[in-house]
Structures are given as C-alpha cells and as structure tokens.
C-alpha cells in the first residue's frame, strides 16, 4: 500500500528535487522504497512510495515497466483477483505481485481491463509511445486520489498534502464548500478546500494527452456506475440469499487474506467486524490477530466497548490485543485531525481509528475492517427516518408537530429538527444525513452563514435505476456514493496509513457489492431489525446472544470534553476575533449555539465541533 504522485506540464516544468520534496510529505504511506520516473522532455514526473505487502522483492519496486517496455505504472492499491486475471489473460509474469498484472492487462486490453479489477486502487499508466497518461481509481474510492488542474499544469496525488507542497501552485481557498462542510462534516466530491484541487471521481478513468501544449479540461469516463448495477428484480428468497451471501463473504475474505506479511482484523465486537473476524479465523489455520480499543469505565461511560470485543475474540479464539484508553490519551493526537486529513474533516471517530491502527501496526502490516456493511445492509437508523419522512401524512403534519417539539426534552428537540423539512423537498437525502449526524441543517445554515449560499442540488440528484427504489434504498445508496466515499473510507485510509498500516475492506468486494445492492429491502430490514440478513449470516458462525445489545460505535465523548478538557478550543477558535477574521459565520449565531450547549442542549456539540474545526483548520492553513 503506497503513495503516488504525478506532475504534468509542458509549459511550467519543475525539477526532480522539487518533486522529490513534495513526495516526502507522504513518506508514511510508503516507507519501504521510493522511485521517480521523468520522461524525455521532463513534461512528466511520476513518483512512488512503497509499502511492501505482496512480493517483497525489489523487482516489484515502482515505477514499474511493462514487459514490452511501452508502459510504465505507479500504483497504490491491492488487487485481490490478480491470480484469476493472470490465468484468464494468460499473462507470463516476472514477479509474483499484482502491479505487473495490472500493467500487463492494460498492455493487452487497454481501458477495457478496468472493470475486471477487484480491489482497491489508484494508479497512473504512462504510454511512452503515444506520450499519453491514463489515471484510474477504484469503484468506491477505497484508495484516495486528488488532482490539481489549472490549464497549464495537472498533478495528482494520494494525499492533498503532497499537492499543497508543489511550488507555484495556486492554493486559493474554495470558500463555497465550507457551507457544505458545516452541513455534512466533510467536503463532498468533487471539491476540496482548494479551488484548483479536486477529488478524482470513483469508478472512473481519465486520459491526458501530453503532446498538447495546454492540458485539456479533464473529461472522465466511467467503467463502473452504481446505478447501472441496480437490477430490475431483487433477491427475495431468504434461504437462498443467506447461502449466497455467506458464500460471497467467505470468497471475499479469503481473497483479501492473501498477503506476504502478517495480517489481522479490527474487532469492535459489533456485527460487521465480528463477522469478518469469524470468517477470517475459519479460513486461516493459524490464529488470527485481532485489535480493539475502548475507554475506561467511568461516570460518563457505562460500558467499555473493549469488553464486547474481548468476549467475541474469546469465542472465536483469536490472539486478541486491546488497549484501554483514558480520555487524556486522545489529547496528544488531537491536532492530527487537522494535519492528517489536509482539509476540514469532522468525523471524530478518526481518533480511535488512528489509535487502533497504531496498536495493530505493532503486530501486523495489514488489517481487515468491517466498513461498508452499514451502508450496504442498512445498519443506520436514518434509513427508517427516510421511510418516515417520505410518508405523506408525516409530511403534511410536520408543520404542526415541529413547534411542539421545541418545548420537549433534548431527544424530542432533536427529532423535531428532523421534522423541519428543508423548503425544497428535493434536499431530503442530505437533510436526513445531516440531522442524523447532528450537523447544521440547511435552514440553520441560512441563519448562521454570512453569505448563505449553499448548493445541495447536485448532491441530492436522484439516480436513474432499473427498478423503483424504496426510500430506505435511496438513502442507503446515497450513503454508499457519498458518505462512504468521502468520509468513512477517507477516515480509514488516512488513519491507518499514518502508521503505515494497510487496511482492507472485504464488504466492498466487487461481487459482494453487486449482489448486496440487489438484495430486497425487506431482507435488509425485517421485523424492525436493521441489517437483518447480515445478522442471520453472522449467527451461523457465532451465538446470537453475544450480540443482543444496542449498536455501539467507536464513540468519542466530544460532548463532555468540549465542556472540560477541550473548552480551550472553543475559546480559541470560536472567539469573536477568530470568527470575524474569516467571516464565514456570524459570531452572534455561533456564540448563541455555544451558550445553549453549555446550558444543557447536549446535541449541539457536533455543531460546535464542526464550527471550531473549520476555524482551527483555517488558522493552520492560511
């Protein structure tokens, strides 16, 4: 698992030293080796930082040439079906790694091969003969890819920080996206915090002709689209689905266990990670290593989540490592959320993910995680909200209900905010997401923003599908294409790579996803049970009573901290001076929210967290 960087320009060339310097910003992604390729007239620089996972020999170092000598690749990722592709395409190889399979498939089949790749990847292939480069990214953006474009220059990289380091780049801020950040807690595709830097689309590729003086405006082509995978008919037979799902899961986990270095799993003790761990343990003859963290029990914390993980680990029989945190343990890595994520990013579960990655890296180089299951199999309560809020009766009566909720308890107040539909019903998907996550609603934003411009139309666009989707499906497919891509997978990649740990996501296997998208809604949510069918599969490995408890995430007690240890952040970044310096939100509105929070409206903590992170990030980056 690695880091890649590329720089293209005919008119504004850079030196190899400058290029190498910006590569160093991503050293954590690939500490084992690095390499740079510069083409004949120096209009192209390609750089690669390597973390060796498959084929540890130097012969697999990159940039890597095709056997014909015409193509050269830099590649960050892991391909799980490379042995099948090698067999099907009859590729004779010199190495035992997956890089060679990608470049040889490309040499044989050009762009047609992208849809065959099952794995996580971002790569660039340079065609020396045609002087043309092709970039490609996996279906869900498990591996990151950002690009800079200004007409004269095009550069791409695994992390934003490398692009920020390249001399002469125009790093003007894109202030328009901060409103979206306050609404969602991350900056959604295609934008970043910078005007000229963008997120590379998922399931897509891009060809750039280096023969032209100016670089064409990027025109992406898609080799896979989620909506096209949604079939006219769903799988409805419970027994049949359970059997097939189990087969696909075992197939995916077994493929993802391939590695030339030690491998383990993140185990929170919840449904998804327990399932992955149980399957991995079954497939691997030697004991599997598992990792979890939890907080000390105290007056605020009724449970130590690590306890659940330990029980499950014991039942499966893993070699379990767990770390019990004191709240202060987070303090030293507090600013990582600013430095590691490169742009405003508010998902506080990044902290425990970083810590568990650090713990795992002491034992293994690769871990499996349960990400993607909640979106694919409907694990969130918000899917039920999407069903409710689309109900015409609730829609009609909501103006009557909403004012009543204002007088209620915090829980009711929060539910009331969900009922406060955006004026334009078309924005219901982002509305539900933002309110489930406790972020600012569109209406609130109109009040707090100095320039209340917020464009949510494209984010809420309906997808064209062969079958009529249920409201729950609409919301969960939105999550897969947005929340998963721009928030969850970013969290896992950056947190694990910070410690040079590769994290794999078996739930996002191509075949498994294609199948899961077409499992009938009624099997994902049955008898009021979320993720019903996945749980049924889990119970074929582990006893049901281990999981009879409420869903429990890697929660960070931000709310409590903002009143205690972290109050200084509020004083610093939500001060009148700081807020007025950037003039994005009205100080009075922010101050009012802080006061209400201190008085006891607990649920406002996320709104405060997101505001202060934005200003903290601005202070560090401008």
């Amino acid at each position, binding site marked *: 698992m690695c880091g890649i960087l590329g720089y293209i320009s005919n008119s504004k060339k850079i030196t190899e030293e400058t290029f190498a310097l910006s590569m160093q910003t991503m050293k954590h992604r690939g500490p084992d080796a690095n390499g740079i390729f510069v083409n004949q007239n120096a209009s192209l620089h390609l750089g690669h930082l390597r973390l060796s996972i498959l084929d540890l020999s130097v012969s697999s170092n990159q940039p890597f040439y095709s056997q014909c000598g015409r193509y050269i690749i830099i590649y960050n990722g892991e391909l799980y*079906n490379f042995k099948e*592709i090698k067999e*099907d*395409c*009859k590729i004779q190889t010199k190495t035992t790694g997956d890089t060679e399979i990608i470049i040889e498939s490309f040499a044989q089949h050009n762009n*047609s091969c992208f849809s065959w790749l099952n794995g996580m990847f971002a790569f660039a292939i340079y065609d020396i003969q045609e002087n043309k480069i092709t970039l490609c990214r996996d279906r869900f953006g498990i591996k990151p890819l950002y690009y800079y474009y200004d007409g004269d220059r095009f550069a791409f990289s695994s992390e934003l920080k490398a692009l920020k380091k390249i001399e002469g780049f125009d790093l003007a801020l894109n202030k328009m996206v901060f409103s979206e950040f306050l609404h969602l807690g991350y900056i959604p595709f295609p934008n970043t915090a910078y005007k000229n830097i963008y997120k590379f689309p998922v399931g897509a590729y891009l060809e750039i002709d280096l023969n032209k003086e100016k670089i064409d405006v990027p025109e992406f082509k898609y080799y896979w689209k989620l909506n096209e995978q949604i*079939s*006219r*008919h769903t799988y409805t037979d419970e027994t049949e689905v359970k059997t097939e799902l189990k087969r696909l899961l075992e197939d995916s986990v077994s493929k993802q266990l391939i590695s030339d270095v030690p491998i383990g799993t993140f185990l929170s003790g919840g449904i998804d990670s327990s399932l992955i761990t149980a399957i991995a343990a079954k497939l691997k003859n030697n004991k599997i290593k598992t990792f979890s963290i939890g907080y000390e029990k105290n007056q605020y914390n009724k449970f130590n989540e690590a306890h659940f993980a330990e029980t499950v680990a014991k039942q499966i029989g893993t070699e379990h490592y767990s770390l019990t945190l004191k709240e202060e343990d987070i303090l030293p890595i507090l600013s990582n959320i600013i430095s590691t994520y490169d742009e405003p990013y508010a998902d506080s579960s990044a902290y425990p993910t970083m810590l568990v990655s650090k713990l795992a890296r002491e034992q293994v180089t690769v871990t499996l995680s349960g990400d993607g299951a909640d979106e694919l199999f409907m694990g969130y309560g918000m899917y039920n909200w999407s069903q409710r809020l689309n109900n015409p009766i609730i829609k009609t009566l909501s103006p009557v209900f909403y004012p009543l909720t204002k007088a209620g308890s915090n829980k009711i107040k929060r539910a009331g905010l969900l009922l406060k539909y955006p004026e334009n019903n078309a924005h219901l998907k982002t509305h539900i997401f933002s309110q489930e996550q406790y972020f600012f609603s569109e209406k609130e934003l109109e009040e707090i923003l100095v320039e209340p411009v917020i464009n949510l139309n494209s984010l809420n666009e309906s997808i064209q599908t*062969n079958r009529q989707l249920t409201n729950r499906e609409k919301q969960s497919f939105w999550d897969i294409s947005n929340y998963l891509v721009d928030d969850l997978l970013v969290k896992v990649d950056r947190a694990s790579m910070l410690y040079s740990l590769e994290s794999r996501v078996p739930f996002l296997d191509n075949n498994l996803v294609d199948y899961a998208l077409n499992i009938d809604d009624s099997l994902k949510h049955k008898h009021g049970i979320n993720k019903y069918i996945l749980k049924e599969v889990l119970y074929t490995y582990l006893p049901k009573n281990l999981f009879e408890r409420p869903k429990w995430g890697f929660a960070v007690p931000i709310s409590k901290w903002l009143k205690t240890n972290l109050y200084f952040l509020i004083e610093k970044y939500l001060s009148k001076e700081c807020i007025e310096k950037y003039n994005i939100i009205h100080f009075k509105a922010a101050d009012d929210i802080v006061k209400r929070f201190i008085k006891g409206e607990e649920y406002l903590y996320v709104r405060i967290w997101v505001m202060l992170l934005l200003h903290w990030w601005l202070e560090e980056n401008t």
Partner: protein
Amino acid sequence: MLNTSTNKSPLVSVIIPCYNGELFVKKSILSVLQQTHKEIEIIVVNDGSKDNTYDEINSINSPLITLINKPNTGVSDSRNIGLKYAKGQYLLFLDADDILEFDFLEKRLEILENNKSLDYCTGEIVWIDEKDQLIAMPKKQFGIYENTILNVVAFNSLFSTCPSAYLFRASTVKKKSIQFNTKISSPADRFFLLEFGYGTTSGFVKNGGKLFYRINTQSMSHLFSKKLIFDQENYFYEVLKNKLLRPQEKAILVKKMSYLLFASFLKLKMYRYSLLYLFKYLKSFFW
C-alpha cells in the same frame, strides 16, 4: 512474393467469442480457415473459459488467428472487444459452436462486392446436433434479409437472428458506431440488428453458403431459467429506452414481449410480474 490476385479481394474479420467452448471451437475455426475466400483474419476472444478452450485454439497453427484472453464478462462484451481488433472491410460474428459451409464467405462477398449499397448479407441456416449430424427442421430457416426490424420484433419463425448467419459491411457498423449491448446476452443479436436499424438493406444467398447452426442441449438459449427471462426483459426495456423503433414496430414489440414475459413469469411463479405483463399485453390491443 506478392500475390496480386488476392490483393483486391477484401479482408473479412471473423470474430469468435468463446466461453467454455472446448468441444466445438476448433471445428468452428477450421470451417473458417477452409473457406474458399482466403483473405481472412480470425479474432478469437476467449472469455475466461475454465475448460480446455485455450489449448484447443492453440493447437491450430495458423498466422491468421489472433487469440485474445480475458476474464469472463459475457458474450456481448467479448464481441465488442473483438470488434476493436478487427481490421477487415467485412465483419462476421461467429458463435463458437457454429460451422460455415466452405463457400459461406465467397457467396456473401460476391453479392456485397457487386452491390456496395447493401449493408449486410445473409443466407440459409441448417441445424446440426452435437455430432455434426443434420437435424430435421420443421421448415427452412434463413437470416433476415427483408423488413429486418419488423421480422426481428415479430419473432418471425422463418428467420433466425443468430449473428453467425450475417456478414456485415464494416463501414456501416462503424458509421453507426454500433456495439453489442452489454446489458443483454442472449437477445443481444436481436438488439444488434435493431440498432442496425431502418434504411439498411440486405443481400441474400440463394444457393450454398449455408450456416450450420448447432442446436445443443446445453446451449443457453434453450434453457428456461430466471436468468434467461430477466435477459429477455432487459432486451425489451433496452429497445424501448434506446428508442430504436418507430411506433408501428414498437407496438408489435410491446405486444409480443408482454405476452412472452407474462407467460414466462407465470411459469416462474412470479405472479406479480406475470400480471403486470398481462396488463401490458391487454393494453396493447387498445393502442
């Protein structure tokens, strides 16, 4: 060194998609190599076969064969990939179990070369079994050579839409940038002919130049399954979505397909869908 007599003779690209075709693919390729028309290139697309297909093809020693190996992505995608490699002025999409009569290409080319306004040419189809023995046919069968669109949508049993029977002029395929629809597999040939569309004309070989079309018990178009019915349903919607038909033919398609889907879903005991198509079928009478 140069053989001037064949210089003028047009190149034919024969594209053969093949998935687990070890039993017949060699015979199929040999029937191309043994054509009286010699200007050919054979592009075999091995669609991720898990049997001996690869070795069978490799056992034929001919410089005219280009073998493309790829993972299994279906017949339409394989044909499209083969199409990318094709350099000929004429195209034949031959199924890996069918066999060409020795003068198949010669007869068709005679007609197409003499009349450049024709877009494709077809001829007679004869059924054979797994042992290459002729099967008695209820009546003669041909490739569609007139009223193409109408005969495709109406399932006229006199005609077969099997692509093996048709030699296409490459420039027409290119001009219309036609590809096989990868969302469909079994009825992809019908879709292809519909895409070829209105205003194209066909030649017809009256004597000789037959296609030996293999009817085998395992052939996918003879199994009744959910997958196959969904495939037909996809064909139906793809035709409508891509607006390939004029109102008159569209009405026939809706009527025919609704009935077929009604009966098929009934057989699959998927009553909701069966009713849906029954309703569509009945509605089509009042159109």
